[in-house]
């Protein structure tokens, strides 16, 4: 049996969408492959004096709508096919949000647990030295992803600027605030998700201000979802939260701020006052209006999907619902806001960061929130219309819309 190939899977998914859209063969052929890809060797002088060579990748899947945008992953099992699949995914995501960007992704095959801090810096700079002809705020803009972060982005930007001997803050996003990062990045994913919940509620007859909600996974986006739900939606009752160490439940409601503070102090939610212990499985099966899966992939599977009682699921995590579970939820008429819409607040604020870097004028947090709201609301409604128009679920509707926009851009440019 051949090994799982993420790019082949992405292509198959795209083929289905292109079939539904009735795209012509030349467009289909063009969209099935990345426009540009590079594999580089990055020699790094390790702390012990020896030189080790790492393999790096950068894929610009489609730049018909604008400069490629996508993170850089440092992963021990990174392959060109993974990077291709994720670069394609970024293309549809930026398109869905109507950002003037294309899709890209990069990666380095390495195990960050095997690298000291100094070696990480050398690797970040070494990567930029190899791919710098591809990068530019008007060509291809990387961002943090798996095992990369603000610090690594800062090193990359600095290396790029030192090659060109001029400032190019917008060459990467996800930078520290002091180096041109954007306000509002920290809670962008959750905030964007809540805006889509607000919009979805209007179509589902849910009053979010009175809704009971539960959060599965209490990392950055889970905590922010718990906090922002009442702030943005004017109320709501958080009744359960879980993290990797256990869950807590109180049918009368949990104070999100106090719980976040407790989590910061103790590293867990279990033990929070006035709550009962609850397992992850039990949390997913709770009778809530809105469920925010914000932890890992495959939280809702065909085994537990039938237990779900929530009316609305907002996928803050990547891939929390398996395709099999998705079918069950559809039959149960559970409305799912798909991940590439629900968690697109992050890439949207990345785009804002680029905008601010380009104008060299920086917005305050309120401005970021206002702009994010506008983008997310617009994207949700466009996706919702597509789902109605194509008579498919929201996930498929959003995907069709995104692919259609890219196809259109390619056509207008006269590429296909």
């Amino acid at each position, binding site marked *: 049996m051949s090994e799982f190939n993420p790019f082949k899977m992405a292509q198959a998914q795209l083929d289905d969408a292109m079939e539904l859209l009735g795209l012509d063969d030349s467009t289909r052929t063009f969209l099935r492959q990345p426009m540009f890809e590079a594999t580089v060797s990055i020699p790094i002088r390790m702390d012990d004096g020896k030189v080790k060579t790492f393999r790096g990748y950068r894929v610009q899947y489609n730049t018909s709508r604008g400069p490629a945008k996508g993170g850089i992953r440092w992963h021990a099992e990174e392959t060109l096919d993974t990077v291709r699949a994720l670069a394609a995914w970024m293309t549809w995501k930026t398109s869905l949000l109507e950002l003037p960007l294309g899709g890209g992704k990069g990666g380095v095959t390495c195990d960050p647990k095997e*690298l000291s801090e100094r070696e990480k810096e050398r690797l970040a700079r070494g990567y930029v030295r190899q791919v710098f002809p591809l990068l530019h705020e008007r060509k291809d803009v990387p961002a943090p992803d798996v095992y990369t972060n603000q610090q690594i982005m800062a090193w990359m930007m600095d290396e790029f600027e030192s090659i060109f001997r001029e400032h190019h803050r917008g060459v990467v996003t996800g930078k520290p605030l002091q180096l041109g990062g954007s306000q509002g990045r920290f809670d962008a994913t959750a905030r964007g998700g809540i805006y889509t919940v607000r919009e979805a509620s209007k179509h589902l007859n849910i009053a979010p201000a009175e809704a009971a909600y539960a959060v599965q996974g209490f990392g950055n986006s889970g905590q922010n979802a718990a906090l922002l739900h009442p702030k943005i939606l004017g109320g709501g009752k958080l009744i359960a939260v879980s993290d990797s160490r256990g869950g807590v439940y109180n049918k009368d409601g949990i104070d999100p701020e106090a719980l976040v503070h407790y989590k910061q102090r103790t590293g*867990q939610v279990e033990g929070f006052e006035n709550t009962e212990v609850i397992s992850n499985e039990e949390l997913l099966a709770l009778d809530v209006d809105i469920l925010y899966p914000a932890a890992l992939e495959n939280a809702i599977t065909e085994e537990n999907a039938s237990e779900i009682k929530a009316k609305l699921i907002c996928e803050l995590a990547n891939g929390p619902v398996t395709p099999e579970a998705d079918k069950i939820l559809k039959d149960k008429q559970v409305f799912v806001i798909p991940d590439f819409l629900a968690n697109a607040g992050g890439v949207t604020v990345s785009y804002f960061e680029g905008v601010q870097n380009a104008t060299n004028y920086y917005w305050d947090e309120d401005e970021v929130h206002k702009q994010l709201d506008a983008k997310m609301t617009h994207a949700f409604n466009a996706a919702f219309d597509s789902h109605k128009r194509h008579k498919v679920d929201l996930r498929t509707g959003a995907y069709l819309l995104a692919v259609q926009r890219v196809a259109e851009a390619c056509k207008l440019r006269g590429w296909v």
Partner: protein
Amino acid sequence: MAFKQSKALTKEERTARGTLLSGIKQFPSLENKIFQQFLIMLHSRGIISIDEIYETIAHGKKSTLQSLNLRRRADNIYIPSRWSERERKAIQKLVLKTVAMHFSEEEIDDIIKLVVRREEVQNLEDLARLPNVSFDLLAQKVSEFCSLPKPSISLPISDLMATRVCLIHHFISDQLDYLGVAKKYIRIIDLNKAAENSIGPRRGAGRVGGKAAGMILANRIIETEREALQKQLEFRLRFPISYHLRSDLYLDFVKRNDLSHYYDLKYKDVETIQTEYPVIQEIFKNGSFSDDILDELKQLLRKLGKRPLIVRSSSLLEDNFGAAFCGKYRSIYLANQGTEKKRFEQFIGAICAVYASILHPDPLVYRRARNLLDYDEMMAILIQPVVGNYFGDFFFPLFSGVAYSRNEYRWSSRIKKEDGMIRMVMGLGTRAVDRVSSDYPRIIALTEPTLRSQGSVADILKYSQRYLDVINIKQKRFETIPLADLRFDQPMAHLDRVVSVCDEDLLRPVIGKHVDAEATRLCITFDKLISNTSFAEQMHWILKSLETTYGCPVDIEFTSNGEELYLLQCRPMSKQIEWDRVTLPTSIPKERQIFSATKEVRNGKLEDIDYVIYVPATSYDRIDSLKTKERVGRAIGALNQKLHSSTFILMGPGRWGSNDINLGVRITYNDINNTRALIEVAHMKDGYVPEVSFGTHFFQDLVESNIFYLPLYPDEDGNVFNTDFLMKSPNSLREIVPNFSDVEEFVRVIDIRKTKTGQKLHLYMDGEKNAALAFLQD
């Protein structure tokens, strides 16, 4: 050629002669020894050889040296003659004159002092060789010796060795392995310090115990090596202020309170020990001391003032070469605040509690397993002011931890075993050595100190220390507090070396020295300590020096106020049996595979396992009463005793032995010591997370007892976890420990022989591939 006597003495020479004569007059009993010493010096310096002296005096009579030469030529012909009284006098006269001509007044004075010192050393040795000499008398003689004026010429170390050995034997340890190393490093003056700071009954004889022994020796080794290399240490090594309650005081306490009959407890079965211990503990706690001792303890407490204290066990067997007794006996922190009466009461209470711990089931089972039960174990106690700084209402060291000269936790192939590792925490070191819940000390591989076992900032935060163990001065107690609760509006020296500031996914060092963020944004990383100071290099050097001197891998406990480093303990590292590589079988059908593991696997093999004791996470999680959860732990303990002659393995959720019962089954060493493998199961959805506990006392117990440790992650791709086998095989708990049938639904005992006829259960572990498999085979 005969030595020629020269002209009459000059004025200076006459003065020198006078010095020598007055020296002899001052120490008449040493007259002969003084002359002998000068004779040797004249001979060895080539001023006048023994032959020349003899020729001059005896006119042709052969010297001993010549006679020996003759004897070598014809052993049976020549019989050496002895000196006559007349010759002796003549030799002395000649020596007197020659010395006066060739030695300065100061030199003569020094040599006389050297002879006197050697005599004193010899006297000490003679005294120390007496079988029943009291500690006080010996200590007094040591003190007198140390107050003698020091000659500018030191006694050769060989002259001191025998005396050191005798004294160390009396004061510190009678272990040959220890003596072999200690005699080279522990000076008489060090013993004097220990003796001065010790308390025990008059005319008693006892030692300061194993923990104190390790501490004294380690500090001396490092100091000696540092001096020899003239090494500058960034973190100055300070010897911890220490007071000793000698082992004879414990003996006295036992006799005085009529507790000796409890000694038989050690020969009873574990269940009886467990049942009786709480009562014994209470009886010990109410024991009394003689008025003399109470006075001494009171004076000691006054001397120490209101500084927080630690009352540490230091039994004779503790920190032994080969049996480390990690954390078996009690050590108690005292805030030492309040009225003198109250402080004294708590002080005495702590001492009694440490005494009682000699009969705790854990050390007794531990001793039984190592054939140490018949040894007349005695408890000495080490009393030390806690190292640290005041910070608001709290008192704690900036950092503490445990360090190993060999690293058994290597998450990267770049990490070398022989470079050692550190497991450290901010605050008191209890968090580094105990298995605490939901908290993680920083682990530093000394090969590559900045290498981390976590890849992302989120993981670094998740696996970081969130709580500090501190002394709360206001509440007068030992406390565990969240880091986030500290208020950094007052400065704390060198805090910037310990914490980093977290801005979303940016983990950055503190800029400058002042921490510019609230506590909730801080993460304990020790990043600056590792990157900007020579701490890691210094620890590496200390571990290597100790390992080389001890002749075996060692582990140490240390603490620091940020500027000075204190070595609190040092002992030979627990040894794990090294297995050759085991290759996993490849053709085991799926249904015969029971579980597999892919993390922290060491080489090893368990064949023909008789029983699997399995606590399913789903059942354990359902228990809502603390009592039932505790009973599960006790059932495990009972099974451990019943199945002691069988091969059994333990499987269950989370962190076994954690202090948080919700994170894993509560057990102690004596509940699991007979198992062959401890397997921690981490179902992703249940939230149980096994901790890499390398370096905790718990883990050291597993290592020493040759218990394999395996964490299982059944939900990760490619891992096997045969729930059907584990849940559907018949449960034999009721037959083996009928008293615990009430916890049958939480504890499953699978008797392999009753499950699959003829099939055997094996567990193979391939450390090189980091893969383990338990499987059934015909």
